[in-house]
C-alpha cells in the first residue's frame, strides 16, 4: 500500500519452527506495511497461531528473524515486544478472571503508565476514564462493572482488543478475533478494526476463518498451508488462485465461507 515509504512496520524473514519432528512453520517471509490490514488465512493446524507466538515472543523460532520498524526483535520477551508497540489478542482468551471488566483494562493501563510497582491503593480508581473510553470504543461500556468471569465469549474477545490497545500499539496481532461470535457481531468487530486502522495509524495482522469477513475488510491476504506460505496477494488475486481453492475444500469455492470455529 504505502510500500515505498521508509521501512515496513514488521518484516519477517525465513521464520521457522519445529516441535520435535513436526515442522509447524517453514521459512515464512512477509512484511506488514504501515496502515495495512493484513489477513493470514489457512486451515486449522496450518501454523498461524505458531507464527503469532513467534512474532510476539511467546515462542522462540527455530530459525529466522523478526524485525519491528527495522529493529530485530527475534526471541525477545513478550513484555519487551509489547513495550515496543505490539499488541496482541489470543485465539484462546486469557483475561483476569478475578477482576471486573474495566479493571482488566485498567491493569494494562497501569502497566502502560509504568505504575506496576506502586503500593498505594486504590488501583481500581486509576485511569478509569481512559479505560472507560476504550470500553466504549469496543462497544461494551455497560459491562464495565461485571465480573470478567461471567462474560460471554464474544465479549471476552472484544475486551482483549481493548486491552491490546492500551499501549497505543503501532502493530496489532489478532488471532481469530471473531471466533465464537454471531455473524452480525463479526462484521461489527471487523468494521471497528478497520476504523482503528484508519484512525489510529495502526497496522493489523489477523487470522480469520470467515472468508466473507476477510474478503470484505482485508487489504491484502496471505495463505498458509502446512507451515508454508503458498500465496500472498490482493483480495482479487487470492480469490482466483487455483492453489488456494485447492487447499480450501479440495478445489471447491473459497467463497463458500466455512464457519469460523477454532
Amino acid at each position, binding site marked *: 500500500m504505502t510500500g515505498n515509504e521508509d521501512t515496513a512496520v514488521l518484516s519477517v524473514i525465513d521464520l521457522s519452527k519445529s516441535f520435535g519432528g513436526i515442522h509447524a512453520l517453514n521459512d515464512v517471509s512477509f512484511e506488514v506495511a504501515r496502515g495495512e490490514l493484513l489477513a493470514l488465512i489457512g486451515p486449522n493446524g496450518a501454523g498461524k497461531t505458531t507464527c503469532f507466538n513467534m512474532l510476539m515472543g511467546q515462542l522462540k523460532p527455530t530459525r529466522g528473524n523478526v524485525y519491528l520498524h527495522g529493529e530485530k526483535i527475534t526471541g525477545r520477551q513478550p513484555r519487551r515486544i509489547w513495550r515496543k508497540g505490539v499488541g496482541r489478542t489470543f485465539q484462546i*482468551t486469557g483475561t*483476569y478472571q478475578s477482576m471486573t471488566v474495566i*479493571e482488566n483494562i485498567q491493569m494494562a493501563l497501569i502497566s502502560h503508565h509504568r505504575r*506496576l*510497582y506502586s503500593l498505594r491503593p*486504590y488501583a481500581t480508581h486509576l485511569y478509569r476514564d481512559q479505560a472507560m473510553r476504550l470500553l466504549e470504543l469496543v462497544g461494551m461500556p455497560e459491562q464495565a462493572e461485571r465480573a470478567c468471569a461471567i*462474560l460471554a465469549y464474544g465479549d471476552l474477545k472484544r475486551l482483549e482488543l481493548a*486491552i491490546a490497545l492500551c499501549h497505543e500499539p503501532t502493530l496489532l496481532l489478532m488471532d481469530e478475533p471473531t471466533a465464537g461470535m454471531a455473524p452480525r457481531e463479526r462484521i461489527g468487530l471487523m468494521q471497528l478494526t478497520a476504523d482503528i486502522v484508519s484512525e489510529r495509524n495502526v497496522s493489523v495482522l489477523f487470522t480469520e476463518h470467515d472468508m466473507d469477513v476477510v474478503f470484505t475488510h482485508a487489504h491484502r491476504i496471505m495463505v498458509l498451508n502446512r507451515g508454508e506460505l503458498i500465496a500472498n496477494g490482493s483480495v482479487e488475486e487470492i480469490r482466483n488462485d487455483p492453489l488456494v481453492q485447492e487447499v480450501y475444500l479440495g478445489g471447491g469455492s473459497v467463497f463458500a465461507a466455512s464457519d469460523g470455529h477454532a
Partner: protein
Amino acid sequence: MGLFIAQLLTGLANAATLFLVASGLSLIFGVTRIVNFAHGSFYMLGAFVGYSLMQVLPGAVGFWASVLLTGLIVGLIGVIVEMLVLRPVYRAPELFQLVATFGVILVIQDLTLMIWGAEDVLGPRAPGLKGIVRIMDEPVPTYDLALIALTPFVLFALWYLISRTRLGVLVRAATQDREMVAALGVNQAWLFTGVFFLGAGMAGLGGAIQLPKGGADLLMDFNILAAIFVVVVIGGMGSLPGAYIAAVLISVLNVFGVSYLPQSTLVLMFVVMAVVLTIRPYGLLGREEVVGEHGQVGEPERPIKPASGRARMMVGVLLVLLLALPMTGSHFLVILITDIIIFCLFAASLHFLLGLGGLVSFGHAAFFGGGAYVAGLLVIHAEAPMELAFLLAPLGAGLLAVIIGWLCLRLTGVYFAMLTLAMAQLLWSLVFQWDEFTGGDDGLVDVWPAGWLSEANSYFYFTAIVGVGGIILLRHIAHSPFGYALRASRDSQRQAEATGINTKRIQWMAFTLAGAMAGVAGALFVFSKGSVFPNEMEIAKSFDGLIVVFLGGVKTLSGGVVGAATLELVKDYLTRFEYWRLALGLLIIAVVVLAPYGIVGSFRKLFDRYRQPSEPETVAAESRQ
C-alpha cells in the same frame, strides 16, 4: 578402607527403608497427582502394626510373615483413607489435598496413641539374622546385608509390575498422560485406589522392615517426611529408578556425614537437594510438568472492592473492643489474644502469597522462625537492644525470602511447593544442628522486650498496633497496583506478560514482602514468649498456616485472618482434651469435604442466597490458556 566399606554398606541398608517409603509416595504422586503428606503416617503405622504382629508370630517365618502382613494391613488402611478422604478432592488444587492429608496425619497420630500408648517401643531383632559379619575386620550386622540383598528384588518386583503387567500399563499411561486413562475406558477411581493400596502398603513394609534397626515411636511420621520428600524431589516425582538413586545417595551421604561432619548431616541432605534442583529443576529423572490451577476450587474469585463504610465501622468497633481488652483484667485473655494477633499476621502474610499470588508455599514458617531467630540471635549474641532487633528481624526474614524465592520461583505448582518445603527444612536443620550459635534443640531463651514493654498489657498494645497495622498494610497493598499485578500474574501469566508485566519479578517481590511480614510476626512472637525453639520453623508450623488460610477461605481477602483467629480459639479449647488431634483432624477433613469455600466463602454464599434468591449466571467462557 574397611571402615569405608562398612559405612557404605550401612548406607545401602538404610536406603532400603527410605526407598520403600519414598517409592510409594512417588508412585501415588505419579498416578494420582496427589502429594500424600500422610505418607509418613503409613510408615509409622507399619512400624507399630509390624511390632504387634511380631509379638504374636514366632520365629523367622513369623518375622517375615509379619512384615508382609503389615504391608497388606497398612495398604488396606490406605484404601480406606483414599476412599473416604481423597476421592472428593482429586480434581481440587494441591492445597485441598495438603489440608486433607494433614487432617489424616492428625487422626492417625491420635489413633496410634490410643492403641499403642505414648511409650516408644524397641524393635525385635530378626530371628536368624541377629549376628554380625566381619568384612575387612569391620563388624557389619547380618540384617543390614539382608536388607541390601532384598532391595534389588523389591526394585525388580516393582519394575516387573510397572512394565510387564496390565496394571503397570495403566499406571504408566496415567503417569504420562491423564487423558489417556479415560480413553482406555478404565475405571479410574479403582486404578487410583489400587495405586494407593500399593503405595501405602510399601510405606507399611518400610516401617516394619526397619524395626530390627530401630523401633516405633509417635514422631516417626514427621521425622521421615522430610527425608522422603527430598528423595522423591531429587529423584524426580513419579520416577521409581530416580527414587532408588536418590535414596542411596541420601542414605550413604548421611552415614558418611555422621562420621565426618556430625553437626551437619541434616543440612547436607538439603544442600544436596538444592544443588540438584538448581541444575535439574525437575529432579534427576523427572520430567517437566505442566501445572494447573492453584487456590480454591469452584467458581472463580470475585473482584475485590475497597471496604465499604459499614465494614470499616465494624472493624473500627472491633479494634476499640480489642484495645479495651486489658481492662477486663484477665491476664489469660490478654495473653491469648496476643498469641492470636501474632498468628493472624503470620496467616495474613501467607494468604497474601497464596490467595493473591496463587503461590502455594509449603515452607512459610521459615520466615516466621527466621524473623524470630534473627531477633533472638541479635539480642543474645550482639546484645542488641530490643528495638533494633525488632527492626532488623523483618529485614533478615526478607533477605532469606529473597534468596529462597529466587530459587523456588524457577518452578511452579507442586514443584514450587516441594522446594519451598525443602528450603524451610534446610533452614530448620541449620538451626537445629548449629548448637553453639542457635542453641539447637534448647532454643534461645531470655529474649525479653525492652523495659517499657515488659508488662503483659503494654506488650499486648504493642502487638495489637504492629500486628493489626501489618494486616491493614497487607490489605492496602492488595488494593494497590502491585497487588493487582500480582493477581494478574496468577490469573493469566500469558496475558500479563503480553501487556508488559514482569510476572516473575512481581511474584518474587511478593514472596519477599510476605517473608518480611512473617518475620515481623516472628519478632513479635519471640519477645512475647521470651524464647524461641526450632519447632517454630518446622513443617507442622508451615502446615498450620496453610490450614488456617484454607479454613478461612483462599478466595476471600479476609480469609487468612478469620481462619487464624478461629483455629487458635478452637485449638485453645480443644487442647484441653486428651485426644484433641483426632477431633481437629476430623474437623479439618470435614471442612475440606463439606465446606470447600472456607469460613468466609461459605458465609458469603449463604448471605448471597438469602439476599438474591436466583441470579442467573452466564456460563463462564472457557478461557484458560
